[in-house]
């Protein structure tokens, strides 16, 4: 039954992936490509964020800040020094990793969860002030514009494939990471600190490691963000992107591999469909987070899993009541 389930999921995944790969070739509008690019980038951010909050139980609220550092880093290197994006994006990621690990990871990771949550939030919150104070380099409140594209003459379609590839690679890396010994140590630490410590897992070192990796990945996502969109400003660090990231993780299913991706898809495409006034949109986002946490703590992934199990059971029995009745009884 388990194997059957896996195959079905693999088939669905392959079909979805194929459609996404072929989509630009089927004559998609540039605006729709733009949306997909946003989705890929957000999926990267949410997935790397989920590595902290979902997988290893470190309550970070600062990943948008990590992303901004990577984005600014890469943009400045490409714009002022004229370096190739092949170099600047990784460098941006590394800058984010180093800064975040030094100034945030080292002092906070020994502290209790609430402290980490608040200090990461304060960190991300202080960045806009810092940016406006360093106008010569970062462009201040206006931000940076006309950031060089991935390569000279790169268009939407190129950006689409570059970001898609980056997203897939990152997801694969995260997948491997979760399955590796390091990943198992993260999960062990999240689930039972005492047990993991007694097995010889150094809590602080493992936490620092995952923190650095998450910052690196978020920073890289920032690099892809600036070179495909062409500009970045302190508004990237406003409360809305922050909320969107949280909502993606929670809505999709925190702690799962595909949950944040799913959440990113829903939030990115959803907010395009619901072109509402700012105030209303934020109210809905806040409400969405509350409702998800209260009533669907596992997010959509858990709902899907339940549905999948249900269908398996039904297929096995062959005969039975309607699915409708079971969906209701499962709730």
């Amino acid at each position, binding site marked *: 039954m388990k194997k059957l389930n896996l195959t079905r999921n693999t088939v669905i995944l392959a079909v979805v992936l194929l459609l996404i790969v072929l989509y630009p070739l089927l004559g998609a509008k540039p605006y729709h490509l733009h949306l997909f690019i946003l989705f890929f980038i957000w999926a990267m951010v949410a997935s790397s964020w989920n590595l902290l909050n979902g997988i290893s139980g470190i309550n970070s609220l600062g990943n948008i800040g990590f992303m901004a550092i990577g984005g600014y880093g890469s943009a400045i290197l490409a714009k002022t020094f004229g370096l190739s994006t092949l170099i600047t994006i990784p460098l941006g990621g590394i800058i984010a990793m180093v800064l975040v690990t030094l100034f945030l990871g080292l002092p906070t990771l020994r502290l209790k969860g609430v*402290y980490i949550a*608040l200090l990461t939030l*304060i960190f991300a919150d202080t960045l806009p002030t810092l940016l406006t104070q360093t106008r010569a380099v970062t462009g201040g409140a206006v931000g940076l514009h006309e950031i060089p594209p991935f390569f000279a003459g790169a268009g939407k379609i190129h950006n689409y494939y570059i970001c898609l590839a980056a997203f897939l690679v990152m997801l694969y890396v995260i997948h491997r990471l979760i399955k590796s010994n390091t990943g198992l140590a993260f999960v062990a630490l999240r689930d039972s600190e005492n047990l993991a410590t007694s097995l010889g897992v150094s809590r602080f070192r493992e936490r620092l490691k995952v923190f650095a990796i998450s910052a690196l990945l978020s920073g890289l996502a920032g690099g892809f963000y600036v070179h495909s969109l062409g500009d970045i400003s302190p508004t990237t660090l406003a409360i809305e992107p922050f909320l969107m990231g949280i909502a993606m993780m929670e809505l999709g299913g925190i702690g799962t591999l595909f949950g944040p991706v799913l959440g990113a898809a829903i939030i990115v495409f959803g907010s395009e469909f619901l072109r509402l006034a700012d105030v209303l949109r*934020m109210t809905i986002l*806040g409400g969405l*987070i509350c409702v998800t946490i209260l009533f669907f*703590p596992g997010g959509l992934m858990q709902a899907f899993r339940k549905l999948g199990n249900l269908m398996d059971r039904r297929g096995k029995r062959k005969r039975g009541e309607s699915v409708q009745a079971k969906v209701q009884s499962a709730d």
Partner: protein
Amino acid sequence: MESILNALVSGFVSGSLYAIMALGLTIIYGISRVFNFGHGIVAVLGGYLAWTFFTRASLPFVVSLLFMLPVMYLLGWLVYRYAIRGLMKKPNADFSTVLFMLGLGIMLENIILQIFGPRVKAVPELVTGSIMLGAIKIKNHELALMVIVLLGIIVLTQFFKRTRMGQAMRAVAQSIPGAGVVGINIERIFGYTFGLAFMVTGFSGALLASKYFMIPHIGWDWMVKGFVIVAFGGMGSIPGAVVGALVLGMAESFTTLALGAVWVWPVWFIMFLVLLLLRPQGLVGGRN
């Protein structure tokens, strides 16, 4: 000399306002171990309600408070009863309560924004005029604020010391199994705690709104300030919050005097990090 004295006075005034603002945060954390991420917005809501009753309905300030405080109490109780209570029983309660209060805070902020608009609001000063103390001038309003805060803190400490419910809250804060063994209904106490803390927070919001300007978004600023104060003094400790608020209030006014207002936040942050390294439990906090 004069400017130093002035800084001292203004540090004391803002310190006492920060103290009452941080109390609500430390009360909830100390008793239920839930960190109220919506704390600032709760204060803002209190401020807006007081503003509405005071300036719109033209009620006297005290009467405005009488209308506002029960509303805040009810809100706190509802939040606990219908959201936090369930979340506290589930795994990962630490972070799910943080996110829930965060989401609720954003929602409240935008609802307030929708109703009251983005323009700055201020509760008018309670008393006008000022007095001279030697060379320095103190506004009567600021004196009144300090007296009110002092009275508020005295009332609260007496509540926790003398009343049956206050004692039960302290008991729950110190040992939940112990509280269970002596027959305290812990969930009910949590409910009262949220009500009380929201009430105190709303009250502090009304006071803050009479000294500083108020927009819905300022709540996040207040929350972060409240957190630094509470963690500085010792999470969950009432004297800690008061001491932390006074120390940081002084630091604020002297930093403004010496370096300029832009530097207040970096100075606070550095003081905070240094303290975390030396005394992670905070200035007053005894045990972990």
